[in-house]
């Protein structure tokens, strides 16, 4: 079975064969023989050429966060055909803007912008309070505030759209 792994630093085609704990994976032109076991929910034991790895794999909104040894990787894995379909034509067209979604649940304690405001990259947009910490969110680009969907004092869930910027 063919997959494509998309990492921050590149895209890797991966082929997998095998079952029942014994696998042969081809990454680029490297072949890896892997003895893999799921030892607990999300915790994999991999033996590769005698070297023992324990990898924690957490689903994070469609991507995998993989902790192995002292390293952390965010990897999106897709079936090869699905990857091709998704990326054909360069993916969703750039919409020339930026949407700030809440990365964690919390309470909005401060909103610094209103629709129509001009912001520079790094300007504070709003502050979310969670776990007794105030977390400031800044504009990732210069632009104009198109929408502000939340108000101070309001509770938000992770993933909620907060502010939409347009170039």
């Amino acid at each position, binding site marked *: *079975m063919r*997959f494509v*792994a998309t*990492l921050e*630093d590149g895209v*890797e085609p*991966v082929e*997998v064969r*095998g*079952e*029942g*704990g014994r*696998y042969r*994976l081809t*990454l680029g032109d*490297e072949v*890896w023989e*892997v003895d*893999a*076991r*799921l*030892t*607990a*929910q*999300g*915790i*994999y034991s*991999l033996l*590769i050429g005698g070297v023992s*790895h*324990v*990898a*924690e*794999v*957490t689903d994070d909104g469609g991507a*995998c966060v*993989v*902790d*192995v*040894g*002292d*390293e*952390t*990787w965010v*990897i999106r*894995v*897709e*079936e090869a055909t699905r990857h091709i379909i998704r990326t054909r034509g360069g993916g969703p067209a750039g919409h020339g803007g930026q949407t700030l979604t809440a*990365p*964690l*649940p*919390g309470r909005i304690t401060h909103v610094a912008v209103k629709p129509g405001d001009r912001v520079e990259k790094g300007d504070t947009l709003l502050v979310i309070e*969670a*776990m*007794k*910490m105030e*977390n400031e969110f800044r504009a990732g680009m210069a632009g104009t505030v198109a929408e502000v969907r939340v108000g101070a004092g309001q509770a938000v869930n992770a993933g909620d759209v907060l502010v939409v910027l347009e170039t």
Partner: protein
Amino acid sequence: MKLAKVLIANRGEIAVRVIRACREQGITPVAVFSEADREALHVLMADEAYPIGPAPATESYLRIDRLVATAKAAGADAVHPGYGFLAENAAFAEACAAAGLVFIGPPPAALRAMGDKTAARRLARTLGVPMVPGTLEPVASDDAARAAAAEIGYPLMLKAALGGGGKGMRLVRAAGDLAGALRAARSEAAGAFGDSAVYLERYVSEPRHIEVQVLADAHGHVVHLGERECSIQRRHQKLVEESPSPCVDPALRARMGEAACRMAKAAGYVSAGTIEFLVDPDRNFYFLEMNARLQVEHPVTEMVTGIDLVREQLRIAAGEPLGYAQADVVARGAAIECRINAEDPFGGWLPSPGTITGLRAATGPWVRDDSGVYEGCTVSRFYDTLLAKLVVWGADREAAIARMARALGEYKVVGVRTTIPVLAQIVAHEDFRAGRLSTHFLDRILPGLTAARGRLRSVAIIAAVLAEYERLGHHTLPPPAPAATDAWRMAFRPGAGGGRR
């Protein structure tokens, strides 16, 4: 008097810590919980547990009325406040006393005396305990500030009289910056503490934060239990603590300890308390403030002295004398604590609430895990990010560091992001290993720290791909627990007369 039942007015790891101490003393521990905490570890571990209101702390863990009423209804004879929440709240201590409940902490007067920073500094000056040169009282005017500043010299610090947590603080490098800094500090102090008073202090470069643990009974006996170095901080949040401090020798320890005991005695202090000092690169120490509570980082002192601080708090609250003198307090080896917080150190230190879907805590020789969570529990967005304190002991600092590195490598938390990867990098840092610390250490190294990357890239891809391969269900991995039984089933010969029940 003997304490029979203690209500713990707290949650998380410190509630669990106190529950354990109660149980070991034959005291019935009673937990309280907000609506968000019904399944929290402290509720599961206590003998009794009572709801005290909705999730926000202001409606539950900070509700003096409900806590006192619950303690009375449960038949508790004492209340342990833990740290944070109401631990240093004199009104809470008084409400407990008024209801006939023993407050396990200092008397209200000592709480008030220590809560007022100016009063505490005045006491220190009276006692001849060194302080960073500065104005004892808040400066009344800009002119007074200018005059004082000229005497203290630049750079200097402006600090809010009622401050804490870095708010209302400003570094002033030169006389020209003073007026603007005063305005900013006063405004911030007024906003944060409802009082705009600020005072001036000489700026100490590369300071270390070192604190001395004291124990005082109700009979006038006071001992100190040596120091903790807590210089590794981020935004005034301690992340790694240790005892002893690599920069404190026996002579300095004796002088700091003596000063701490003098402060505690003069304040009429009772129970476990901490005197915080700032230590400059020339090993001069200066009084900062007194913490009238058990500290988060108390375990490192416990591991080197062998003295159980919560047990001592319970004994002292019951009116027992300490029963030992300063010479009986003997430190052995070195202990380090790392705070495992639900924060994403490589993602802007954002808090990371959620469900802990996988958890394997470090354990084994000389590893102590003071945790408030378990696999399957929820990390609520309503409370602070501290999940667990990982503490190790070693025969010397080098052994303790090696053990901490080992333990951090074993500690696995799945489902929420934690500080573990950055703790591992701190513990591996050459300045940390050499004991070259200051409160700027973390700010200095953090920009250079990133999630370790490289060596295990292919392994990470393999794990991610196999997880997806399995999720698609085409070729499942062996289930979590087969092996022996399966092999066994194959070896079984049904023809030999065996039959399943």
